Each structure stands twice: as structure tokens, then as C-alpha cells.
């Protein structure tokens, strides 16, 4: 039984695709301080690989244009994409730009099938970064990453149904991030596939390639135990622009409510609750009006109208009107499960027992009774049940 499912969403040539969507032309090399970060498909076909020097890359593909992009610029594009993906999974982790791991456990039940879920991921990613993506789903991170890379463009989704070790077995050993020397040694020994490498004993691997290779050996055996560490989300927001400035309180509340209704279900699916809500109004005169409210209990859809009216109560309606409304939900925390009503029920029972004891003491005897079955099958109805005087023991006996 597979308990853990991890999905890897991979954006091929992420940096180059971003540059292309910003108006650059293909072939294209993305570099930072003279070191190649990425290249588009055409440039890659010329033999350009990340890590190469820019001069070397330009020698391989003289017609390629070079673009210098800072890491911060890519982060600014990548973070909203992760936020969007987090709406569909309780945990999203990104080890490098362009690749993210998501917790896929239980998504089948929630979305009907994993294909539907992966389509949702594609759609969310496409909305934010306008670049194609591929999804691989397996039992661990390494297998999911390999599956994502092996996925064809259509359908852009591969769910590894067999065991991870079996899936990895026929693939070249080059999928492992091995040092160059180890790779050469394996080649000399005729170990070309992950299956061959996995069949070596752990002792042999340590003896031949050193203790550092035991991790890769485990990965080849389908035993990548790296946990999925979900990133902490800070906020989600939605906004609505108005063609005509709005100056009516009710309309703003209605719009805010709709925006909240749009955001909250996705947060619930991701296992998060909201403890702070912020409304930002872009006023027609050019100013911005912001109001925040800290919540005593997690935000829920039925409470939205009341909270919005509280938030907007300070807004001066004599302004020229609102052209844009932003609803920002912040203070996101993991939802904590509760045993509903269990302890309340116990407390209520204690209160009731105390009340009954008091009444029995004040009004006894023959005031407080409990009904008990006597002869349930008696012919005379009056004989079937009887009333017994209330005592604490009788109450306990009745349970």
C-alpha cells in the first residue's frame, strides 16, 4: 500500500521561457555574471547547458541573444506561482526555481482523479507564469522528479503506478546527481542503469565509491526518504476593479464577500485557516484606504459580511468612490482539528448531574424520577416501564 505520494511540477527552461514571454527572441541564453543559467529549446539543441560560460555558449550558438537576469527577478515571478500551487496542496516545497514538489496524498479522493488535479496545477501555473509545465507523481521526490522530466508535453502528466524501484530500474544512471568521477567509474564497470546500480550491495557501493554514494544508491533503490517540507504561506488576495467608481457600502460588502468566498475554499483544501483580514480600497481621487482586522476565531464564509461591514465602517462614503477593492487574507496558520462537542457534552453532563443532585436534595423524596424498563414484554402497558427515584447511582446504572 502506497502511503505517501509526491508530485513534482517542472517548468522546462523556466528562465528562458520567462524571458521569451517578456519579448525576447529565440534562440536565447539566460546568464548571470557570465555564467549560463538557462537556455531556450533552440539554444539547448546547439549543446548549451547551464553552468557553461557565456563565451563558450555564444561560440556554440553565435546567433543566440544573451539576457542577464538577476536571481531576485526570478524569485519575484516564482513565488506567486508557488502561492497559486499551494491552493491545491497542503504542502509545496521548492528546492530550485522551476521545480516544485507537492504533497499529492489523498488528492485523488478530493479531485476525483490525479489527472484532474494535475490539470488544475497546470492551469494555475499557466495563469501566473505563462509557461508550460509537466507533472510527475511517485512515492518519493527523486522518482517524481524523474517522472516529471520523462512526461511528454501532452498530456504533461505521468503517475507512476508501479513501485518506484521498478519505475527507475531501466533508466540511465545519469539521472542521479553523481560526481563526474563516480559516473566514470560506473561506466567503466558497465553499470549503466539505475537498476544495475540498485542491485549492488550497500557494502560494495561504500567500498567502491565511498560512503557519500550511499544516498544515491538508496535513491536508485526507490528509497529517497527526503521529507516534503511545505513552505509557509504568508497571504492570499483577490481584487475587483470597478468600471464606474462605487460609493455604496452594500455593493462593496457584496463584492468583498464574493472575493472571500473565492479564496476561502482553496485555503480550506490546503488545510489553512485565516486569522487576519485586510481590505484595501483604491479611491477615485487616487488615494488608497487600507483597514485590517485581527480575528478571534478563524475566518469562515458566513462571518464574511459582518467582518467586512466592520472593516468598512470607518470608510468615509463622501469620497468620490472606489475604483478597486483588494481583499487580502493574512495570518495563515495550519488548521487544527477538533473533537467537536465531545468535551462540551461531558461538561454539560457534569453540570446536569450537579443540578439533579441539588434538586433531589431540596425536593426529595418523590420529586425526581428516572424511567427504567421493567418488563418490556408485559401484556399490560403500565407494567413495561417504571419510574425509579433519582439517585446518582441510578443515573450511572442507566448508562
Amino acid at each position, binding site marked *: 500500500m502506497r502511503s505517501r505520494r509526491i508530485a513534482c511540477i517542472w517548468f522546462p527552461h523556466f528562465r528562458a521561457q520567462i524571458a521569451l514571454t517578456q519579448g525576447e527572441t529565440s534562440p536565447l541564453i539566460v546568464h548571470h555574471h557570465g555564467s549560463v543559467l538557462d537556455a531556450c529549446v533552440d539554444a539547448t539543441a546547439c549543446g548549451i547547458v547551464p553552468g557553461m560560460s557565456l563565451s563558450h555558449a555564444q561560440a556554440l550558438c553565435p546567433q543566440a541573444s544573451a539576457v542577464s537576469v538577476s536571481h531576485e527577478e526570478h524569485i519575484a515571478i516564482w513565488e506567486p506561482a508557488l502561492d497559486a500551487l499551494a491552493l491545491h496542496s497542503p504542502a509545496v516545497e521548492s528546492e530550485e526555481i522551476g521545480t516544485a514538489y507537492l504533497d499529492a496524498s489523498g488528492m485523488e479522493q478530493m479531485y476525483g482523479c490525479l489527472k484532474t488535479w494535475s490539470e488544475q496545477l497546470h492551469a494555475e501555473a499557466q495563469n501566473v507564469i505563462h509557461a508550460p509545465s509537466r507533472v510527475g507523481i511517485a512515492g518519493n521526490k527523486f522518482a517524481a522528479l524523474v517522472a516529471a522530466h520523462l512526461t511528454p508535453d501532452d498530456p504533461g502528466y505521468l503517475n507512476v503506478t508501479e513501485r518506484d524501484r521498478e519505475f527507475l530500474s531501466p533508466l540511465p544512471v545519469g539521472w542521479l546527481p553523481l560526481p563526474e568521477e563516480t559516473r566514470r567509474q560506473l561506466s567503466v564497470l558497465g553499470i549503466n542503469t539505475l537498476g544495475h546500480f540498485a542491485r549492488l550491495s550497500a557494502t560494495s557501493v561504500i567500498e567502491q565509491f565511498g560512503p557519500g554514494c550511499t544516498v544515491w544508491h538508496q535513491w536508485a533503490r526507490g528509497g529517497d526518504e527526503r521529507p516534503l517540507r511545505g513552505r509557509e504561506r504568508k497571504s492570499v488576495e483577490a481584487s475587483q476593479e470597478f468600471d464606474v467608481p462605487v460609493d455604496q457600502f452594500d455593493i462593496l460588502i457584496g463584492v468583498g464577500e464574493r472575493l472571500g468566498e473565492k479564496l476561502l475554499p482553496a485555503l480550506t483544501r490546503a488545510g489553512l485557516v485565516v486569522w487576519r483580514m485586510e481590505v484595501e480600497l483604491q479611491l477615485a481621487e487616487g488615494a488608497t484606504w487600507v483597514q485590517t482586522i485581527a480575528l478571534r476565531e478563524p475566518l469562515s464564509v458566513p462571518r464574511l459580511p459582518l467582518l467586512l461591514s466592520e472593516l468598512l465602517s470607518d470608510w468615509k462614503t463622501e469620497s468620490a468612490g472606489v475604483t478597486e477593492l483588494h481583499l487580502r487574507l493574512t495570518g495563515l496558520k495550519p488548521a487544527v482539528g477538533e473533537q467537536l462537542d465531545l468535551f462540551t457534552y461531558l461538561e454539560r453532563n457534569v453540570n446536569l448531574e450537579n443540578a439533579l443532585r441539588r434538586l433531589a436534595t431540596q425536593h426529595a423524596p418523590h420529586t*425526581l424520577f428516572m424511567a427504567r424498563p421493567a418488563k418490556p414484554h408485559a401484556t399490560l402497558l403500565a407494567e413495561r416501564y417504571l419510574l425509579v427515584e433519582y439517585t446518582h447511582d441510578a443515573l450511572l446504572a442507566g448508562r
Partner: protein
Amino acid sequence: MGKTRWQQLDATVTAIQKQWGMGAIQKGWQHEQAYSQPATPIGVPRLDTLLGIGGLPEGHLTELIGRGTAGHLTLALSAMHQAQLHKRHVAYIDLSRSIDLDYMAQCGVDFDSLIVMRPDNAEQVFRCIRELSTAGVGAIVLDRANDLLVEFAGDQRLSRYLRNLRSVVNPTHCALILLTDLVGANYPDPVLPNYVSVRVLCEHQRWHYRRQSVTGYTSRITILKNKFAPSGRTLPVRFSFERRKK
């Protein structure tokens, strides 16, 4: 001057609600709010809907009026059963000392969470209700409330007691159900209706037979007073003995 159509609509809705009650007309977005009054269902879905809040109001007094075999006791027992389904204890104040445990069992009342009280006087009744409602009991049925009222005939204390009772029950989630048996032609006491939030009249209409044996009866239920929805609504309800048998 210068009122928008929305403001005019608001004013009209408010005027109608003032005249005919909150349930007479509601704005769409107020619908949920208007029904937010917690209620104990009776277990007759159409009657629960008719009451406007899904049952008998918790924290309020409800009066079920009827003659023998009109169905008011059955409705009360059914409400007790519904309260027990929500893990609440229920209490039955048996003033007439004529409790029918077998019928209660047939109506689905669970004896493990039932408290039966037989107070000697009105003082004790009010004290019991106060203790039980604040202790978390879900529904209290006061059988033959008119016996209690007779004790106070022409006495100013009744109003005071009922006012106190209402204020005690109000902050709790206890549905206090008063059963009034109509014996003569007139209603026993004109004071009680002022303090109850919902008044329901049950009138026996006809018996149902199958092969000369009685299988049930139909009663006409009229909502005489309702603070949560328009009153005056009528619904025939069929009570079946066969269905109740376990």
C-alpha cells in the same frame, strides 16, 4: 430627497417588517441571519418549515394547545426525541402524575437521557425549570401547564413568575414546551400567551382505520403566534401509530 432605489427598497422592507413581523419579508442576504435562531426540530419536516426557524425555538417558551388525542403531546414527545438525537438530555414535568412511559418509548424517547419530575407546587416547578435549563437540558416539557395556572387564578404572581421564567430560559439552549389541555370551551388563562414566543393549536380532525382497528389520526395544526415567522398558518398532520412502533 435624492434617495436611491436601494434606500427606497430598504425603507419599504423595514416598514413591512415593522407591521407584519421579521418573517413577513426578508432581503436575500438577511435570510440566513433571520433563521439563525437555534431551534429544536419537532420531527415533522413541513411543520418545522412552517415555524420558520426549523422547529421550536431554544431559549423561549412554546405552548402546544389541544384537547385529548389532538396530537400536542405527541409533538412534544417527538421534539424530545429530536433533542436526544442531538445528544441533549430532556426533562418531563409530570404535574398530572399520569405519565405514559410506554407511549413515550413508542415515540422514540430514550429513557437514559430522560428526567421525570413530579413537583408538588408551582414554586418547585419554576425552581426545577431554572435548574434544569441552566444545566444544559435540551428540552423541558411541562405537561398540563393549565393545572399550574389554576393555582394562580387571579393572582398577580403568575406574571412575575412567567417573566422570571422567560429571563431564565432565554440565555440557555433549552426549548421549554408547555402543554395546555383544553377542557372546557374557553382557554384557561389569558396571561400565559403574553409570555410564550410560539403558540401552536392542535385540533383532532379524524381517525384512520384499517379493518376496524385504529391506525392513526389527522390533526389540524394552527400556529396561533410566532415571533420568528408569520403566524396563522395551518397544516394538517397525520399521526400514525404503526409508524411509531419499534
